[in-house]
């Protein structure tokens, strides 16, 4: 059970996407795990062959528990990193040659189980697809290339679009979401749908109660896979982590306001030339500047562990994302300092979309080295955040607002933004934090170089 965020202690296996004997590649989705905050897709951390599924669906286990074991597939021992070394199947359990990936002699190209499944779903013959992956392996994008995702497709049970309100109502009433017809777009279940289903069930129950067994009611209230309402548990998870943060971390706060004219003008010119799908938003420039400054200035990017600050070698940027209906998730953008603006924009869009409409990937939740909150989106001018332990810094950006601003001795009206740093005084001093914030402000004055 991987740690999916600093606040996670345990998780429940909801579903396995692989079976014993399946060959998996690094990045393939292996299981779906439920945490206090959300359902998460857990990827394989390496290539290998699934040996044993140890934890069956429905079981809740602590972080660090072995969920499944992998054995080697290509001569190298494979292991799930969160599994203690002792739990890893020793090499040689499965003959390496039998499971070796790569193009096979009978002409069937190699593809991961997930990709094979995808191909089968879309009625494709793998032998007729040109694989662009490693050694001709057919990848998910090869499939997408040949047969793009069908536009309207009955979403799979757990992937159905369900509004947060509907989820809450259904959980409160014990209504099985699968029995409800969604009237939203693409069958999305809305709050009203749940209310209607509940009313129907109530009506059905009343007259039936006298002369018939309550089969209708039963059908609706019996819920084989309970849909978890994450609202309460998410609140508790946030409460626990924030209490710990304020109890353990001696915070200091710094704030600075800088001119956004150059950034906004530059963005505007860029966006004019771009199709909407390629447009950037100011937040992406701020994220990029934060990642660069965090990489440069020692004491900000990393973790406080064992009475030491451990500087991280890359910037894994946590982005606080609000969840409709309440609560928040913090997906991370790994190696953010290496991403150019369009890539950063794409990663941000993907992560936010998965927070709100789908499931995050396990790799998107663990290992943030610094966190950014952009509460300005909700109209406030500044935010004094709480550092997420074991990280040592949280950067807050307020709204871009027009303010009177002195430039070269003259007063003008300029778009400005207020950036705030909440930092762990054990790891850095105010002077370091000040340099960090000032660096962000300076970088934002030359957006073309970001």
């Amino acid at each position: 059970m991987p740690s999916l965020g600093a606040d996670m202690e345990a998780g429940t296996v909801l579903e396995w996407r692989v079976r014993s004997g399946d060959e998996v590649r690094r990045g393939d989705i292996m299981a779906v795990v439920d945490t206090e905050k959300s359902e998460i897709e857990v990827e394989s951390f390496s290539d290998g062959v699934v040996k044993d599924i140890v934890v069956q669906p429905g079981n809740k286990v602590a972080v660090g528990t072995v969920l499944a074991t992998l054995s080697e597939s290509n001569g190298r021992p494979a292991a799930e990193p969160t599994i203690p070394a002792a739990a890893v199947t020793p090499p040689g359990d499965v003959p390496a040659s039998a499971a070796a990936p790569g193009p096979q002699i009978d002409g069937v190209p190699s593809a991961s189980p997930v990709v094979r499944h995808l191909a089968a779903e879309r009625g494709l013959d793998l032998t007729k697809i040109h694989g662009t992956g490693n050694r001709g392996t057919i990848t998910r994008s090869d499939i997408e290339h040949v047969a793009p995702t069908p536009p309207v497709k009955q979403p799979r049970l757990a992937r159905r679009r369900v509004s947060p309100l509907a989820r809450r109502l259904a959980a409160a009433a014990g209504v099985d979401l699968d029995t409800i017809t969604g009237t939203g777009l693409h069958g999305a279940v809305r709050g009203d749908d749940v209310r209607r289903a509940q009313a129907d069930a109530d009506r059905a129950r009343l007259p039936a109660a006298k002369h018939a067994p309550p089969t209708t009611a039963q059908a609706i209230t019996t819920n084989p896979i309970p849909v978890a309402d994450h609202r309460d548990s998410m609140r508790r998870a946030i409460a626990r982590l924030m209490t710990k943060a304020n109890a353990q971390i001696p915070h200091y706060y710094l704030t600075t306001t800088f001119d956004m004219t150059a950034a906004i003008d530059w963005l505007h010119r860029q966006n004019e030339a771009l199709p909407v799908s390629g447009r950037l938003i100011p937040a992406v420039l701020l994220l990029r500047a934060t990642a660069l400054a965090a990489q440069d200035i020692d004491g900000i990017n990393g973790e406080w562990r064992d009475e030491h600050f451990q500087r991280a070698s890359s910037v894994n940027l946590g982005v606080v994302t609000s969840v409709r209906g309440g609560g928040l998730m913090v997906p991370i953008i790994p190696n953010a300092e290496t991403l150019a603006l369009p890539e950063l924009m794409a990663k941000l869009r993907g992560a936010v979309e998965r927070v709100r409409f789908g499931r995050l990937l396990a790799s998107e939740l663990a290992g943030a080295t610094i966190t950014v909150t952009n509460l300005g989106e909700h109209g406030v001018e500044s935010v004094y955040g709480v550092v997420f332990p074991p990280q040592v810094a949280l950067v807050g950006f307020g709204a871009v607002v027009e303010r009177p601003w002195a430039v070269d001795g003259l007063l003008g009206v300029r778009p400005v933004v207020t950036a705030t740093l909440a930092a762990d005084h054990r790891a850095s001093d105010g002077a370091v934090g000040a340099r960090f914030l000032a660096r962000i402000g300076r970088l934002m004055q030359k957006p073309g170089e970001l």
Partner: protein
Amino acid sequence: MTEEEARAVIEEEIRHIVPDADFAEMTDDAELREELELDSLDFLVLIERLCRRAHCRIDENDYPALRSMGGGIRLLVSRTSPDTATQP
């Protein structure tokens, strides 16, 4: 595109982003982003969807018009009218 069509298109596209959006109690001059808690990413996605649906280009200069439902309807109606349609 008529006003009714424009309204239907905007409401439908917003529901892709906010499935629970309740337009019954929203006036045409209400601040869309505030009422529906749309952040700048949501807003960009909405613009993208509207462009695709209405086959017109919406530039950043047009964003202020989309602050309210009424403004959005006027924008779509004018962009899709044969006399004033801009190049997609």
